[in-house]
């Protein structure tokens, strides 16, 4: 039975083509050859800080609403008006959703205390609920910036507390 399993695994390795040779800590005396990088994928639209996240939301919300107007559409990244495809609007909405989803992580990766962190997360949940219906593939509901923007302002109030002391000065 163990031999069968080892044969299966050998087969699995060859089929899946894994060939990374990242070092395990026992390999300390060896030369290393890196066939493939071990990656943690970070999307291009991921903000660096909580303040950056709030800026991104504030910048994207009006653009998303504009794209609701007939003839307007979005490309999904910073150059929001470049594309004329319907997929662009969907991508931009998805990216907006991603950014809202990063609120807990970036709030935790800041100087926010527990109460403020929880406030940020709660606002994030409200944001998610507010535009959830616009996200579906068949959705016809327009993006409603009037509902979204007050919530973004709530997040903006937390930005000073989120920054390092030297950044606040």
């Amino acid at each position: 039975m163990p031999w069968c399993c080892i044969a299966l695994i050998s087969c699995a390795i060859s089929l899946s083509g894994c060939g990374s040779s990242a070092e395990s800590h026992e390999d300390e005396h060896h030369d290393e050859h890196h066939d493939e990088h071990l990656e943690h994928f970070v999307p291009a639209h991921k903000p660096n800080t909580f303040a950056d996240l709030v800026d991104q939301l504030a910048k994207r919300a009006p653009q998303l609403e504009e794209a609701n107007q007939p003839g307007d559409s979005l490309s999904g990244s910073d150059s929001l008006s470049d594309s004329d495809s319907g997929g662009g609007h969907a991508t931009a909405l998805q990216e907006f959703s991603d950014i809202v989803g990063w609120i807990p992580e970036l709030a935790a990766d800041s100087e926010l205390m527990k109460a403020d962190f929880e406030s940020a997360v709660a606002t994030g949940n409200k944001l998610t609920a507010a535009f959830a219906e616009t996200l579906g593939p068949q959705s016809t509901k327009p993006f409603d910036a009037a509902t979204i923007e007050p919530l973004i302002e709530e997040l903006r109030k937390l930005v000073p507390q989120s920054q390092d002391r030297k950044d606040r000065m």
Partner: protein
Amino acid sequence: MAEMMFWGFATRFTVSLIQASPFILVGFAVAAILRRFFGYEETRKLFGEGTRSALFRAWLIGMLLPVCSLGAIPVIREMRRAGIRGGTILAFAMSGPLFNPLSLLYGLTLSEPIAILSFAACSLVIVTIVGLIWDRMFPHSALPIVEEKAVAYGYRRMLAVGTAAGREATSASLLYILLGLGGVGLLGAFIPANSLQHTFNYDNPLAPLYMTGMAIPVYATPMLAMSQLGMMFQHANSIGAAFVLLVLGAGMNPGIVAWLYREYGFKRGTIWMVLLLSIVLGLAYGVDRPLFPKDIEPANHTHAFDIYCQPFSGPLTTSYFEATKLKLERDISPFEWRPLWIFGLLILSGVILQIADRSSKLEQWLEAAPPRQIAGRGDIIVPGPVLGLLSLAGLVVLSVVGCFAYYPSPDECLEAMTDARVGALSAALSMDHTETKYWSERYDDWTRKLEVGAYLRHGELSDYHRWKARLLREQLETLEHEVEDEERDEVMKLIARISRSHNRMSHAFRDEL
């Protein structure tokens, strides 16, 4: 090449043996308690033999007792001798090693605790369905009930437990245990170093299938399996593969498979294996998408399975013996050797008994008729099954109490992680990947203990605290990769980030719990 494979086998075999020793000792203790305190009849009653609750009881007892898949071997052999049906025995064998209080607590701090609870529920489904079908197909799988002799009260009864454990430790149980360890040794001999880092990515639809092939020879203690699940969740690897790892990696080993075929024959053994693998794979693909962590960016790799590959790659500057010795010194803490010495002593006592008392005169003396009168006033004769239940409950309580020692208070954890933090950051500053990885793993481990320790003492852990620890772990892993890629600028930035994250985490766990 052959030398590297030999030392790969020896290294993985030895490390697994040391990790397994405490659980194996518990297994021999439980088997001896069943034999001498319960006896065959009461053991059948304990496991509900012949009742509808038998499979559930086997699952529950298995979940509560701190045994691993190797420690389960003496217990299932004792259950077999007691005349319990195969389905119930195999239900215990499968569920016993999956969880214990220590590992369950650890699992609940993972990013998706619901996944761990779902895995536990799925394990009940597996043992129930496989057990029911198998028992229906083979209703007469139990051994005939044999007469047993009672043991005298008092010190003789205690001595009887010791001799039963000693004799069992030199019986076929030992061979099955060694066979179980042989599986992980063979993986260490044949699977190229670090070659499993991409096999179980979330986007590989065959990941659960591959894991099924690897998981049976794998040996993992409940804690190790849980920490590997943690790494798989952290990297958003295949959840189906993680489930298979838990059920088969922690729950099965080649020793149990060999015992199954020897006791029940080729046909019944194969049917049980086919039933088990079909249901496990079906459930694995069933939970793969629903339990996929939603708030994690998937990585294209995992380090969880590096420990099952060859420990050495390429030419060494020292001998393999020296490299193995160095690895064992670094990876095994001094206190981890003690259970192995105790296990060795147990085997030695069994060998002495086998040589000095071939005709089992000691057992005949122990089984002499118990005295009718007891000497002291107020003294009472405690029935064996009561002692047995108390002993098993004691093991469970001990493992729960052990949680408080294994997971210290947040203050103690933060104090204890200082060495690991300094080690990891200093190693990164000097761009030493080996040391960075070594200390980062220990630093990472302390952050998990910090979470569990806080959860144990406060009854809850907020998202705020979970995020603080998780961010630090993610940054540590990125640091390790950047050191490996020799990105000095990125390393310097990360060191500053990690220091900040550590201070925030300390503040959160010291002042905001």
